[in-house]
């Protein structure tokens, strides 16, 4: 949508702009300005900027979202172990961690020899594109194939903020119950892949029905693939690795398209000190 041709005037809002509509009246001495801007314009702009950075280094970026304790860090640890052990084609990974407090998760990741940038959000319940942009100043993207962003554990707020990732992965852990997609449609609608995590608990938490979770996902028109897995015992992890593999290959063509579109032509309001790139357009 844009601000020039009027394509942002939709069935939903056109009634407001017509004469007599809420946006049409103007009293003397006052001026009514029709805007029709997304409130998240600024964030989305920075997110596009981040995405251009990732693309210019052909880095696949995945935003992991879930409620607290659904197993995002455990999934990352298990993923790192496997990807590092891949014979012949070991992938280089970096992780950006978002938490309200502590460096605990970043330290868990660093124990595996993987670079982890911890963003401590304080009271903020989500990561936004600006925080990721700051973190990018500390990462030499040329060294990596994949950047995982582990968002703040929260099924509400992170869904509203584009970070510049290529894909969203939502975890739904067995102890949470299978109706989370119905309760948090915004989050689960944004997911490109849904992982039902902690499936090793299914025998004891047998009121969680994976088929029911899939039904709730269909109800919100989600066609995201759904994998059942356990990072703890390794079951079902292969489907996740295969999906990652396919997406890493797909990223090659995404990055190529992005560079031909040259969508990185907005001007910078600050100096860049990214470790190794020289592609800033002006």
């Amino acid at each position, binding site marked *: 949508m844009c601000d020039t041709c009027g394509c942002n005037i*939709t*069935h*939903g*809002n056109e009634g*407001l*702009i017509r004469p007599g509509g*809420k*946006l049409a009246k*103007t009293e*003397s*001495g*006052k*001026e*009514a*300005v*029709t*805007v*029709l*801007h*997304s*409130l*998240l*314009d*600024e*964030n989305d702009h920075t997110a596009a900027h981040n995405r251009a950075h990732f693309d210019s280094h052909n880095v696949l970026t995945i935003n992991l979202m879930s409620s607290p304790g659904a197993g995002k860090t455990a999934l990352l640890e298990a993923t790192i172990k496997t990807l590092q052990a891949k014979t012949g084609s070991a992938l280089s990974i970096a992780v950006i961690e978002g938490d309200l407090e502590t460096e605990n998760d970043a330290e868990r990741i660093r124990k595996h020899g993987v670079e982890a940038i911890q963003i401590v959000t304080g009271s*903020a*319940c*989500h990561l*936004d594109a600006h925080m990721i942009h700051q973190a990018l100043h500390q990462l030499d993207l040329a060294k990596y194939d994949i950047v995982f962003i582990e968002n703040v554990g929260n099924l*509400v*707020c992170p*869904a*509203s*903020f584009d970070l510049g990732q290529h894909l969203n992965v939502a975890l739904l852990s067995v102890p949470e119950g299978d109706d989370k*997609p*119905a*309760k948090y*449609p*915004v*989050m689960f*609608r944004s997911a490109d892949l849904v992982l039902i995590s902690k499936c090793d608990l299914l025998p004891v938490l047998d009121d969680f029905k994976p088929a029911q979770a899939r039904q*709730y996902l*269909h*109800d*919100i*028109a989600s*066609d995201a693939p759904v994998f059942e897995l356990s990072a703890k015992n390794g079951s079902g992890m292969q489907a996740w690795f295969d999906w990652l593999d396919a997406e890493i290959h797909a990223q090659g063509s995404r990055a190529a398209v992005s560079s031909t579109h040259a969508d990185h032509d907005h001007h910078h309001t600050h100096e860049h000190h990214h470790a190794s790139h020289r592609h800033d357009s002006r």
Partner: protein
Amino acid sequence: MHELAICQALIDQIESIAAERDAARAVAIVIGIGPLSGVEAQLLKHAYPVASAGSVAEGAELVIEDLPVRVKCTQCGEESDALPNKLLCKHCGDWRTELIHGDELMLMSVELEKQSVGANSTAGEAKMTLH
């Protein structure tokens, strides 16, 4: 509760629109929110006085339009109203729909009060002289 962050983004936009148009202050702001934007209108209303304090939008009326959820079926092509967690086609019942409305989070309009000629304008309701 990310509504304060959203509200701050709103105030930033109002500030720059007011500056572009040389306005003294905003008197009314209309935003449109769809239920699938992930933003709660009531929380936004609570955050608004805090976020707008000291800005050109301080004291401006915040009008929130609740926008409906509409989907278009990718199978039968029909459009229908839907609920945020039931985005099914009302005509053929299929789940493979596209959201056409309902995730908006939009600044729709702002009503501005112009700067008065002369330095000591008051920011009240008094009639202002236009440039």
